[in-house]
Every structure is written in C-alpha cells, then in structure tokens.
C-alpha cells in the first residue's frame, strides 16, 4: 500500500516537473522543472528495484546535465531578458510532434510483451564485476554507439560556437 503510493508520488513528480519544463515562460523555471522530472524518474527506477540505474540517473542527469544547462544559461542573456511571445506556428508544430511521439511510444509499449520477473535483481547482480562485465560484453555495442553520439554532439557544439575567421 505504502509502496504503491510512493510510486504514484514519483509519477506525480515526473508529470509536474515535465509540465513546468514545457509550459514555463522563464528559462530558469523550465530547468528546475526538468530537474524535478528527472528526479522523479530516478525514484521510479528505484521503486522498480534498480538502485544503480537510479543513482546513475541522479549523477548524470541532475548532477551533470541540469547543472551544465544552468551553467550555460547563466553565461547567456536568456536569464535576464523578457521571454519572447509564443509563436503560434512553432507551438502547433511542437504539439504535432508531441502527439505523434506519444502515439508511437504508446503503440510500441502496447505491442511489446515484457518478460515477467518474479523478484527484483539480487545484490549480486549489481556488483561492480557483474556491471563491468555486462557493459563490456553484452551491451558493448550500445555503449560504444552512445560514446559516438556524445562525440558528435561535442563536435557539433564546437562547430556552432566557433568564431568565424574575418
């Protein structure tokens, strides 16, 4: 009973944070909303019985990504200027994308048969050796692909921020 209500609390955090991130006119509130949403997601991982993923979620998304966005915002003028009025065409496009994405994900979830697990993974499954082994054998391709994506993102960021030679 209590565990069930804790899950709903985390779901509420995710939804409230997401709404704050999407609908806030102030950039700072949007970032805070994103942080709340990601924290709720970490809580959901925890209640699903994977503390390692939850800790990684907090380490990377709250300690890393959110702080990095805050840092980038502080150095730009976006924090101090009044936000521009919403553009109807952009909003419509965004709503369209969101609806398509929602139905695609809902369709995928409905058509996937998730394996039923009797009990959450044991402490042994989260040992350093087991994690390292899984990352470098079974999930190696995913791991390396993600590194490539990050590398591309960094190169892209440098390309955008680079000063043009006059």
């Amino acid at each position, binding site marked *: 009973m209590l565990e069930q209500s804790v899950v709903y609390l985390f779901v509420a955090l995710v939804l409230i944070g997401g709404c704050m991130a999407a609908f806030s006119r102030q950039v700072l509130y949007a970032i805070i909303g994103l942080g709340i949403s990601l924290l709720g997601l970490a809580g959901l991982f925890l209640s699903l019985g994977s503390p390692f993923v939850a800790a990684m979620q907090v380490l990377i998304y709250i300690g890393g990504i959110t702080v990095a966005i805050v840092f980038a915002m*502080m*150095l730009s003028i976006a924090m101090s200027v009044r936000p521009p009025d919403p553009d109807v065409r952009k909003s419509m496009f965004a709503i369209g994308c969101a609806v398509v994405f929602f139905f695609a994900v809902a369709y995928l979830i409905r058509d996937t048969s998730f394996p039923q697990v009797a009990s959450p993974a044991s*402490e042994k499954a989260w*040992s350093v050796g087991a994690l390292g082994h899984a990352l470098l054998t079974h999930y190696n391709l995913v791991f390396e692909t993600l590194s490539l994506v990050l590398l591309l993102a960094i190169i892209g960021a440098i390309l955008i921020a680079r000063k043009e030679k006059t």
Partner: protein
Amino acid sequence: MKTDIVQLFDNPYLALGATIAVIMAYLSVNAIMLIWLERKLSARIQRRIGPQRGPWGLMQQIFDMGKLLSKELLTPAHANKLLYVIAPIMVFAPVVALSSLFPITRTYIFHDFNIAIVLILAISGINVVGIFLAGWGSNNKYALLGAVRSVAQNISYEIPLILSVIPIVMITRTMSLYDIALAQSAYPFVLVQPIALIIFIIAATAETNRAPFDIPEAESELVAGFHTEYSGMRFGLFFFAEYSHMIFACALATVLFLGGWHGPILPDAVWFFIKVYALIVLMMWFRWTFPRLRFDQLMKFAWVVLVPLSLINLLITTLVLKLV
C-alpha cells in the same frame, strides 16, 4: 559480523527515524564544535588568543547559536521567495541523507549499500543546484556572481574527485564503503594510492568551497558570495552545511584511504573519529595558511594539473593491477 540499524530495531520506519535523529544531532553539535575549533586554531596560527567566553572559549559558540536562532529572518523585497527559502535546505539535505552510509565500526553500522560510492557522488552533486538557487533567488549581483563561480568550480573539481576514487574501487572491486574499509585490514590504501589521496583532499577542499578555493564567497570581492542576502538561521544553515560537508569529505577520505576503523588498541569508533578530525584540522590549516587563488588560476589548476594527474594515476593503477 555486521549488524545494521534495521536489524537492530526490527522495524524499517523506526530505524529510519532513529538514523535521521542521530545524524542531525551529531551534525549540529559537530558544526558548533568545529566553528569553535576553527576560531581557536586560526587564532593560534595568527598569534591571537581567540574566543574567551567560558572555559577555553567554549561558551562563545552557545551564545552565537542563540543569536543566530533568535535573529529575524529577513527576505529581500525583490527576491524569489520560494527559491530563496528552499535553497539552504537543498544545500544541507544531501549531507544528512548520505551520512548514514559511513561504517564507523565493524560491528554496528547504519546501513550497508552495495553501490554506496555511486550514490555519494550522485547525491552530493545536488548541493550545487542549491547554491545556484540561493544566488539566483536572492536577486543580488554579488550573490549571483558567487553562485556562478561556485557552479563553475564545483563541476570542474568533481572530475578529479571522481577520478581519484576510481582506483580504490578497482583495487577492492566493490563500491560498498563497508567492504572497502574491511579490505584495508592489512594496510591503509594511502600507502598504495598516495597521489589519489592528495588529489582527493584538494578536490574535496574545492568542493566544500573552503579557502584557498573560497572564491564563491570571497569576502573582499563579493561581500559574502551566494549567501550575501541571508540572515538568521537561514544563514546558519549555510554555515552548518559548510562544516557538515567538511566532515563528510573527511569521513569519505578516511574510509577510502586511511583504513576507516582499523587501528591498534583503541576501539573502532575512536580510531575512525581520530582520523576524521585529523583531516579536518589539516583542512583548517590550509585555510589559514594559503592565500585565495584567482579564478583563472583555479580553473587552470583543475584542468591542467589535477585532471591529467588523476588520469595518469588511474592508468598506472590499471597497469599494475593487470601485471600483478
């Protein structure tokens, strides 16, 4: 054999309440005593006498606490009320949440967690957000500048901090603090990882915003940095948080590098606290000996000296572990 607090109370909610009560009481008394120690030590280093009310000046802290608690809580007119009130709590709460992970003795512990190190590195990053919200919510240019400096400093020094912890995890092949302390029964890891300890102490001093890395609150430039607009016990909470972060960092260094509770003759807990307070005195000694770094020197030190050094240390550790 170890007994944790849930087994002791046989009721998880009672255990949780007891853990929080013990940690809050300890951190509060500890902060008051450390402020006294810092004032006495700084006075000795500068050839002064320091606080003198009561025996050895101990009453001074009691009076200061009374003053802080009874002061009016001012909120600046144009501050963002919600962020302004939440910020000090967000700076202090992570330390309280994480303190239960430390194994103080080999028989009784609060809680043993198999990925404790990841959890500590993850949750201790949240206090940066708190500091930033304090600076932003105050609506004061000095506070905001202090917050900007603090965020830049914290994300830079978190990298060498994490890189200096990894060799220990590689040697012990575990992320549980209890097992890491247990693995040092023969010798403390400072003997095999001296460079990692030095990097850890420097990075931890920077993470706790203490001199010579105290530019987020540099009083000669920024009044008081991110807590300029805070008064009364809200300011007191920032003060508590600083000293709690100090003891937290020193306890982590003790478990990772100095062998935790291991030591001859004296009981476990006594050895643990001797090591922790020795490190704290060392950090206080830094503060009153070194001048404050300039901002560019600070960033350069992190990225040009500490990060490459910790990477080289990691590489050598890997090679040695592979060959032996």
